[in-house]
């Protein structure tokens, strides 16, 4: 399995790490579209998440949005620095702006997600 980012239609990204866990974040496009982020609700470590279902919330001045899990698994780490430094989501969305790390039920789930090319096509069309 290649270690590049893959994307959900709901604009979360997922990247397989060397230890078999998957890092999850929010795409630069989505952060740019949200703007004015003020609050983020992260799941607890140990929580189970289900692909396509909400695992947290992100709130902007205008509205609240759910964060949807790109894959199913168990949360093994959450970026607890993030809620107090939401600007990191915009400045480094694929690095220090990561949201959670999930131990996936199976890595094959990643194949159901979009690769960079498909995602670029999606956001190009929006």
């Amino acid at each position: 399995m290649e270690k590049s980012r893959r994307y959900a239609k709901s604009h979360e990204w997922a990247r397989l790490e060397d230890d078999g866990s998957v890092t999850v974040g929010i795409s630069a496009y989505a952060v740019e579209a949200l703007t004015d982020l003020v609050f983020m609700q992260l799941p607890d470590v140990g929580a189970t998440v289900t692909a396509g279902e909400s695992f947290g919330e992100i709130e902007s001045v205008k509205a609240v949005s759910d964060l949807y899990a790109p894959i199913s698994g168990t949360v093994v780490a959450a970026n607890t620095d993030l809620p107090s430094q939401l600007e990191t989501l915009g400045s480094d969305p694929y690095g220090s702006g990561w949201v959670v790390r999930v131990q996936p039920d199976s890595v094959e789930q990643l194949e159901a997600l979009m690769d960079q090319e498909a995602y670029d096509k999606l956001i190009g069309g929006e």
Partner: protein
Amino acid sequence: MPQRTPLAEWHENNRGRMVDFAGWSMPVQYSSIVSEHLGTRKGVGVFDVSHMGRVAVEGNQAAEWLDSMLTRQVVDLPVCRARYTLITGVAGEEDNVQLDGAPVILDDALVTRLADQKDGSQRFVLVVNASNRQRVVRWLQARLPPEGVTLNDTTEDSAMIAVQGPLVFGHTAEDVFAGPLGSVFGKKVLQQLATLPNYGVLETELSGEPVLVSRTGYTGEDGVEIILGSSQALGLWKCLVEEGSAIPCGLGSRDTLRLEAAMPLYGHELCEKTDPFSAGLGFAVNIDGREFPGAEEIRTRRSSSDRCRIGLVFESRRAARSGDHVLVSKNGTDSICGEITSGSFSPTCERGIALAVVDRAIAEQECELEVLVRGVRLPAKLVSLPFYRRHRHD
């Protein structure tokens, strides 16, 4: 297709994020809501508010007729003054104006009296909400007397630009040219504007065309709102932004600014069935000895009003939203005591704030309040309104 203001193209070419708002294509924001909000609090923001309805009411019976239609007294409104009012309607259908249940609040509005014409005919301008404009115009038109009053919806032939912030007239009284209006108006007009009282109005000219400038706004800041012909709007806007360094602001910051100033928004603080006294709008209803549509019913509501408007501040940056329930805890039992009418993150307070309507007893005593926000109970502190009050130089 949504309607376009004379500035729509400028917004699109300048990173305006356009949305359909009440049938108009309007910018929510250009940069970010927070930066536009804080820019208006510290300097000067400009807002395209051309979507707001503008209705000219004229004639030798105009004052008397408006007085019979509005909750606020109009016959004593001096020339060149504006006044906040509600527009009420009664039950039933009247010329396609369907009003079920009596009476209803059709809108809130600013009524401005202009100088009489030479023949003694009176002139007024009503500024109404975009979302209610058609219905209000139909309602008023259906109630016009056979003669003595004419009514014209001039919205689509005109534009409206709000210029708001502590530096609209510079830092000091001697410094009026330092503000963005210094590049728009001449010295004499500028000094007249700078000395206008709140809700004062000046009829003047811009490049030979008539413009109406009011010392009014919807941000809690000092400033003016300018009504002018469509063809002049782009020139004024560019002058304010490019020469005057005012910050273009969208509807997003307009909403957070008005919320901090605790100003009502139709559809939130104020709806068809709202009792104006519970909504904190008793001041907008001159009810004693006056008649207007639904006056009798509103009199009854005043005596039976058992709810009131409050302000809430949260510890959290998270915001309660319209419709969220306010909970009160008494002897270990929770009960719903009201609901949020508007809520948002406040850029000035850097936390969530909200307006709510609650049982009157709640507002009169110290108690622990919580708001149920998306399944989470957020503790909230009851505060006096407004959340933000500007410093006054005068």
